[in-house]
C-alpha cells in the first residue's frame, strides 16, 4: 500500500468516525421566523 492510499484511508476513516460521534439533532431549536409576503409588483411588458 503506498503513502497516498494510506492517507486516503485515514481521510475516509476520519469522516466516517465523525458521523458516529456527531449529534443526531440540535439540542435547542429556534422557532422559524416567517417573513411577510411582499406587495405584488407590476411589471410592464
Amino acid at each position, binding site marked *: 500500500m*503506498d*503513502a*497516498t*492510499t494510506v*492517507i*486516503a484511508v485515514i*481521510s*475516509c476513516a*476520519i*469522516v466516517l468516525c*465523525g*458521523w458516529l460521534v*456527531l*449529534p443526531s*439533532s*440540535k*439540542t435547542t431549536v429556534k422557532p422559524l421566523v416567517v417573513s411577510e*409576503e*411582499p406587495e*405584488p*409588483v*407590476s*411589471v410592464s411588458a
Partner: protein
Amino acid sequence: MKIDSGDTAWVLASAALVMLMTPALGFFYGGLVRRKNVLSTIMHSFFILCLISVQWVLWGYSLAFGPDKFHLIGGLEWVGLNNVGFTPNADYAPTIPHQAYMLFQMMFAVITPALISGAFAERQRFKAFVLFSLLWATFVYDPIAHWVWGAGGWLHQLGALDFAGGTVVHISSGVSALVAALVLGRRLGFGKEKVEPHDATMTVLGACLLWFGWFGFNAGSAVAAGGLATSAFVVTNTATAMAALTWMTVSWWHKRQPSVLGAAAGAVAGLVAITPASGYVNVMGSIVIGFGAGVVCYAAIQLRERIHVDDALDVWAVHGIGGTWGALATGLFATVAINSGAANGLFYGNPKQVLVQLAAIGAAWGWAAVGTFAILKFVNLFVPLRVQEEEELLGLDISQHGEPAYAL
C-alpha cells in the same frame, strides 16, 4: 494530421457541458443572495457568457494561445480567428479541428470572470461590472492562460501542471475576488444584520448542474476520448463527493447540524481542488484532495468571517484557496502511471514538482491581485464601482435592471 471523429465529438460535447456551468453558477450564486438581488446576480453570469464569447473570438484566444511573445503573451496573429480553422493544431490538440479547441477554451474564459462576480454581489454597479469584466479577461485571464497552457508560456516551460485550470481559472478568479471585495468594501449592514440565502434550493440545483458540467471541464481537458478522459472523469466525481462529505461533517461538528448548503459548497470546493490534478492523480489521490478541500475551504471561510471581509459568496475561500490546495496537491500526488506525458509528484519520488507548483501558484496570486487592483482603480476613474446607498437598499434588480425577479 488526421481529425479523429470520436475526439472531436467529445471535445464539442465537453464545450457544451462547460458552457452550462456559467448559467449554473448564476443559479448557485442567485440562490445565495437576497431576493432583491437575485436577477442581477444571475445577469452577471449570463452577461459574461455573451461578452467573453465575443471577446474570445476577436482577441482573447489570440492573446492566450496565439504564437508566443517573450513567453508572456500570445501574439495578435490569430485575432478574429485568423489562421484558426479546421486543421488541427499540433501544439494543443492534434486530433481535433483547431476551432473545436478554441471553442472549448472559450468556455473556460467565460466562466472565470463570472466566478469573481460572487465577491461583489449585491453592491456593484452594472456598468462598472461590464468594463471590469472585459479588462480583466484581457489583462489578467489571457496572460495567465498563456503562461500555463500556451505553447511557449513560461510556466508551461517550467513544467507547471494544471490539467484543467486550478491556477488559470480558480486561483486567478478567487484571488481577484478577494481584492474586489476589499476595494469595493462591505455591503450595507454587513455584520449587523443577518443576510440569509433567499432560495437554498436554487443554490443546490446550481451546484448539481456545476458538478454535471464539470465533467466536460476536467475530462474534456484530455482533448481526446480515451483513457485519460475516463480517469479525469472518475477522479473528478470521487474528489467532489469526498469534499461534500467532508465539508458536511466539518460543519456538522462546528455548527452541530449537517448543512445542506454546506454539502453543496463542499462539492464545489472538491470540484475546484481536483481541477488542476484531474489528469495526473489516481483515485486514492483524489480522495485525499477532496478531503483536503473540504477542510481547508471551510477553514478559509471561518478566517474570512473573522477578519470581516465581505466576499459575499465566498469566492476566495472556495476558488482561491481550493485552487491553491489543488495546485499544490498536484505536486504531491501526480503520477506518470496516470499521465505518462506529465511528471511525478512528491509522493512518487519527485519533490521538485512541489516547487514548480508553488511558483505557478505564486505567479497566479501575484498577477491576479495586482491586475485586479489596477483594473478596479482604473474603472473607478470613469464609473463608480458601487451603486449608491439608496440603490443598494432598493436592490440591484430594480435599481440596475428595472426588473424584479419574482412578481408574486
